[in-house]
């Protein structure tokens, strides 16, 4: 397995992402700055899903719920006058982590088909909850008056500063994720996916580790939600809609699951594809749907597997 090729690919990827703002300025297309920032935010969400899906084998179809919770954790305090980014983002991480802990505690006692349906159902429950609360915009959502404030240190209103903040967060998360996968915790998660009964037979109480991973993934996705609502400057319950969960999952698969960087590629691919297709027809989903089916049926390894010797994830 050539980890050199992969490391180079990752390096090139980050350099490319770092250059996007400059390119966008040169080409006088600020839209691309916006687009790639959005891509990176979803990449963060996809990477968090990859931890439990690609490495842990937990097919959670309700991951967008944490995206939404993170977004609300920013927008609601902002609505009531609390603009501090530290407070908002900490709340986003904690709130979504706790929600994931509770949902996981119930869901992880099941597996297979049940697990998928249950995670989907709980996410949809939160979505309906969001819709029904009139004070916080109900169906229409809420506007964010201003982006999260970080004193004088970071001015997220500046598109370039915001862009590099997101890039930095993505880079740090990938690095931490890379360490985590190789550490004891990561080994337990990965081996539990491979053969859970065996894990219990050698003495691991797998439930607590899987639950911890589930909660961790949820809280990272919550951070992505906080970033997303800053990006769009509004939020709607649709952030939590189950189709959003499907989109995030698509990114993980398209890019290559169980590879950490694969989901980043997947986010780039999917959102660029959506951008291109939607310019062509407003009904682009009628094309995207079959594309997804074909990818699943015939190109399972995702984009990551197209790299030299990149056919397997961190083994």
């Amino acid at each position: 397995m050539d980890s050199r090729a992969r490391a180079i690919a990752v390096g090139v990827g980050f350099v490319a992402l770092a250059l996007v703002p400059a390119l966008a300025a040169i080409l006088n297309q600020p839209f691309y700055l916006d687009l790639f920032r959005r891509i990176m935010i979803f990449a963060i969400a996809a990477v968090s899903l990859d931890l439990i899906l690609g490495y842990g084998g937990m097919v959670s179809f309700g991951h967008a719920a944490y995206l939404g919770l993170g977004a609300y954790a920013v927008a609601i305090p902002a609505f009531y006058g609390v603009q501090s980014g530290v407070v908002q983002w900490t709340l986003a991480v904690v709130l979504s982590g706790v929600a994931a802990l509770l949902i996981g505690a119930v869901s992880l006692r099941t597996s297979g088909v049940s697990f998928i349906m249950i995670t989907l159902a709980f996410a949809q429950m939160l979505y309906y909850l969001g819709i029904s609360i009139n004070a916080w915009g109900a169906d229409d959502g809420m506007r964010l008056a201003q982006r999260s404030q970080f004193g004088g240190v970071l001015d997220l209103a500046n598109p370039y500063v915001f862009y590099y903040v997101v890039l930095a967060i993505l880079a740090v998360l990938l690095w931490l994720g890379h360490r985590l996968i190789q550490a004891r915790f990561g080994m337990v998660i990965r081996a539990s996916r491979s053969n859970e009964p065996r894990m219990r037979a050698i003495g691991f109480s797998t439930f607590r580790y899987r639950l911890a991973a589930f909660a961790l993934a949820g809280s990272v996705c919550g951070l992505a939600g906080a970033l997303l609502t800053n990006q769009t400057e509004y939020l709607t319950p649709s952030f939590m809609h189950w189709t959003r969960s499907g989109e995030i999952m698509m990114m993980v698969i398209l890019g290559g699951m169980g590879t950490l960087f694969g989901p980043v590629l997947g986010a780039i691919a999917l959102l660029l594809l959506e951008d291109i297709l939607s310019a062509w027809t407003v009904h682009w989903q009628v094309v995207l749907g079959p594309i997804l089916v074909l990818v699943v049926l015939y190109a399972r390894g995702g984009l990551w597997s197209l790299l030299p010797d990149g056919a397997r994830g961190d083994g």
Partner: protein
Amino acid sequence: MADALLEVRGLTKRFGGLVASDDIALQVAEGETLAVIGPNGAGKTTLIGQLSGDLRPDAGTIRFAGQDITGLGTPARSHRGLARSFQITSIFRDFTALDNVALAVQAHAGHSFRFWRPAREEAALREPARAILERVGLGARADVLAGTLAHGEQRQLEIGMALATRPKLLLLDEPVAGMGVDESQRMVELLRALRGHHTLVLVEHDMDAVFALADRISVLVYGRVIASGAPEAIRANPEVRRAYLGEEDQA
């Protein structure tokens, strides 16, 4: 028996109308090797399931090292010193042989809520794992993916993983299942080497292995223990011959 390491009393398990375990009683002394034999359908798998913690008995008790473990789950039993190997090879196919054993070591080396240091760099996990691989004869195959090992090697790996949990008692579910003559002999030698240091409960069909290893034998037929004693006594027991050894042409 005064100080049995494992003591099973009145173990009963029903599946609907079928009584898979019928008031089973067993004792295993420390250091002893007990073989449990019986024809197909005798309930050996159900028995192992209840001893390992995968199945809850409907009645009866299981005492291990003087403590009642009947209500304990599988991981807890592993931590008490009860290890098992599986009849159908159950390993981590996508990991190397060394990784497989190191995981078993890891399970008993403190908690695994460690997120930073690569587990493969922990000498406290790798060194004991290597030693065990040597012991079971897989020293040279440490870095091979477990899924690509030969069938016999995978069975050896099974034993290795069980040993890595530093057990008092090894529950071995048909260790020579599906092995050819040479492989079986190697496995029997390996198990013989374990006999002095560990207590073994061996469930087997292969009578050569059973008579080569067992200090005592219990015979299970339709969920009941019909005879228990020294190998020679069992061989001579007419009831056993009728129920089981009469069918024996398998080894």
